[in-house]
C-alpha cells in the first residue's frame, strides 16, 4: 500500500493534503495497491471527512495533540509503517514535512527523496522526478528499495476531488512523551506594516537582479510614475532592503493582481507559488531561460537597467541617478 501523511495547521487541513491524495492514488495505481491516508492530531474526525476523496481506501486517525510536533509525527508514522508495511510513505515537502520525514526515514533506515514533482513505479523500482540547480534542470532519480519515503512538492498535483467511502480506523499510537524534546509554544504572523500587497491590483515586483540596495530608487521611481504597489522576491527581504510585508511567495504573501511585473526575478518555485494567480504576468530578465518566462504572458529578455529607465520616461517620471 501507499501511506500518505496529511498536514494541517491551526485547525485547517492544508491544501497539499488533498494533492498528496492525488499523487498517492497515481502511485498506488502504478503498483496496483491501496491508498491509506493518516491524519495525526487536531480534530481528526472532521479532517477524516475532508480527506475522504476519490481514490482513498483507508483513513487512519490518530487522536494525539492539536498541532504538529515533529516528535509525535515521527513516532506515530514509524508505528504506522511497522504496522501497515507500506511500499512508499508520502508526506508534503513542506516546512513541517521536512521537519519529520527525514527523521522517519533515518529511524527506519529507508531511502528518502524530497521535493518530488513526478512519481512512477514500475517493477518494484520507484522513479522520482525532481529539480536541481534552482530548477534549471529536472532529474529522474531511481530508488532501488522495497520501501522509501518521498516528500512531494505542493501545487504540482491537482487536489483530489469527489467523495470516497473510505474506511476510517482509529489508530492507537503509543507516544513516548518523555522522548519529545521540542515544544511548540505559539505562532506569530509577520507584521502587516503599511500596506497589504495581497489587495493590490497592479504590482511591480523586484528580485535579485536589482543587485544593490543603492539601485532601489530606480524601481521606486517606476512605482511612483505608474501608481503600482511595490513588492519583491525573498532575497530582497532577506537583505532587509524591503520589509517582510512586501515579500511575495511561499513564505510571504500570495498575490493575485490584474498585472504583475516581475523585474529581475528568476522565478524560483517558492516565488511562483505566491504570484501565479495574477491575471497578467510580465517578466523582465536578462536570462532568457529564467523559469519566470514559463509562467509569464509577456516577456522582455533584457537588462532592467536599460528597460526600466525607458519605462519611467514613458509615464513621465523622473529617472533617478543610480
Amino acid at each position, binding site marked *: 500500500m501507499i501511506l500518505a501523511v496529511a498536514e494541517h495547521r491551526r485547525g485547517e487541513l*492544508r491544501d497539499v493534503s488533498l494533492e498528496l491524495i492525488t499523487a498517492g492514488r497515481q502511485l498506488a495505481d502504478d503498483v496496483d495497491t491501496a491508498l491509506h491516508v493518516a491524519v495525526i492530531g487536531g480534530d481528526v474526525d472532521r479532517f477524516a471527512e475532508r480527506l475522504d476523496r476519490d481514490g482513498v481506501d483507508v483513513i487512519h486517525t490518530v487522536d494525539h495533540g492539536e498541532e504538529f510536533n*515533529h516528535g509525535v509525527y*515521527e513516532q506515530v508514522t514509524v508505528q504506522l509503517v511497522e504496522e501497515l508495511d507500506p511500499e512508499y510513505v508520502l508526506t508534503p*515537502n513542506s*516546512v513541517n514535512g*521536512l521537519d519529520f*520525514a*527525514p*527523521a522517519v*526515514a*533515518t529511524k527506519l533506515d529507508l*531511502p*528518502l527523496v*524530497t521535493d518530488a514533482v513526478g512519481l512512477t513505479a514500475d517493477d518494484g523500482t520507484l522513479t522520482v522526478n525532481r*529539480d*536541481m*540547480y*534552482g530548477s*534549471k*534542470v*529536472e532529474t*529522474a*532519480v*531511481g*530508488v532501488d*528499495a522495497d520501501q522509501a519515503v518521498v*516528500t512531494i512538492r505542493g501545487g504540482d498535483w491537482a487536489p483530489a476531488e469527489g467523495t470516497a467511502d473510505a474506511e476510517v480506523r482509529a489508530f492507537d499510537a503509543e507516544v513516548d512523551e518523555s522522548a519529545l524534546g*521540542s*515544544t*511548540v509554544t*505559539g*505562532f*506569530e*504572523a509577520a507584521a502587516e506594516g503599511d500596506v497589504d500587497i495581497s489587495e493590490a491590483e*497592479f504590482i511591480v515586483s523586484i528580485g535579485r537582479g536589482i543587485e544593490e540596495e543603492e539601485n532601489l530608487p530606480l524601481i521606486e521611481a517606476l512605482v511612483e*510614475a*505608474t501608481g*503600482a504597489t511595490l513588492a519583491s522576491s*525573498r532575497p530582497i527581504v532577506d537583505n532587509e532592503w524591503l520589509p517582510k510585508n512586501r515579500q511575495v511567495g511561499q*513564505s510571504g504573501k*500570495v498575490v493575485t493582481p*490584474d*498585472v504583475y511585473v516581475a523585474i529581475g526575478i528568476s522565478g524560483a518555485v517558492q516565488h511562483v507559488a505566491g504570484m501565479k494567480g495574477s491575471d*497578467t504576468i*510580465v517578466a523582465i530578465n536578462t536570462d532568457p*531561460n529564467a*523559469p519566470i518566462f*514559463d509562467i*509569464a504572458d*509577456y516577456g*522582455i529578455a*533584457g*537588462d532592467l537597467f536599460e*528597460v526600466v*529607465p*525607458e*519605462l519611467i*520616461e*514613458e*509615464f513621465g517620471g523622473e529617472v533617478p541617478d543610480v
Partner: protein
Amino acid sequence: MKVLVTVKEVREVDDEFEIEGTEIPEQYLEYDLNEWDDYAVEEGVQLQEDGVADEVVAATIGPERTEETIRMALAKGADRAVRVWDDALEDVELLDVGAKARILAEVVEEEEPDLVLTGVQAGDDAFGATGVALARKVGYEWAAVVNHLDLDADEGVAHVHRELEGGIDELTDVELPAVLTIQTGINEPRYASLRGIRQAQRKEIAEQSLGDLGLSAADVEGELELTDMYEPETESEATYFEGDAGEQAAQLADLLRDAGVVDA
C-alpha cells in the same frame, strides 16, 4: 559551548549550459559556499562574539578543491574545520541524505558539539533533509527552517522561530544538544575581512577519510541513482517584446495602459 556548522560547496550552473548524460560539464559550473550555509556560519560566529559559544568548528564533505570554500567559513570567524573525503566518494554520483547523515554523524560524535547549525538546503541538489536526518542519527533534538534563534545556554534550550508557509512563524523550544537548519534572512552574513582571510590561512583543516571515521564505502553507496537529467519542459507561451530597450518599454507601457492599471 561548542558549535559545529556543516557547510557545503555547491555547484552553480551558468545561464547558458548543456547537459551531457546525467551531468552538466565542468565548463558551465561554478563553485561557491552554499547560500543557506553562509547564514548558518554567520549565526555560529555571532554566538561566539556574544560569548555564548567557545568554539565554532566547520565541517564539510568534499574533495580538496572545497578547501577554498571552507576557508571562507574560517575567514568569517570559524576556529577550525574538518573536511571529510575519500576515493570511495569520488565514485558516488548522487550522495543521498542517508549517506551524508552517516558521515556527519561520525564527525558529530567525535566533536560532541552542543549545537549543530546547517543550512535549510543546498542550492544544487536541494534535498533539504540532511540536518534533520543527522539529528535523528545522533539522537539530538532538532528544528527545521529556523529564522530566529535565541539561545539559553544555562537552561540548555534554544528558543527558535520556524518559518512556516504563508508568513507564519512557529515558536518552538528545542532542548540541547540540537541540530538547527538555518533559513536565509536570519542574519546578515558578513564579508570576510582581509585580516580574517589572512588568519584563515593559518587555521587548521583536518582531513578525514571514511576509514578515519570508522566508515566504509558500503556506508555511502545509498539506494538512489540519478537516471536522467533534462531541461524542464517549458510551457512558456509568453509574447516577447522585441526591439531595443526603448521599443520594449513602449510596448510594455501600451500593455499597462490597455490593462487599465496605469492612467498616465
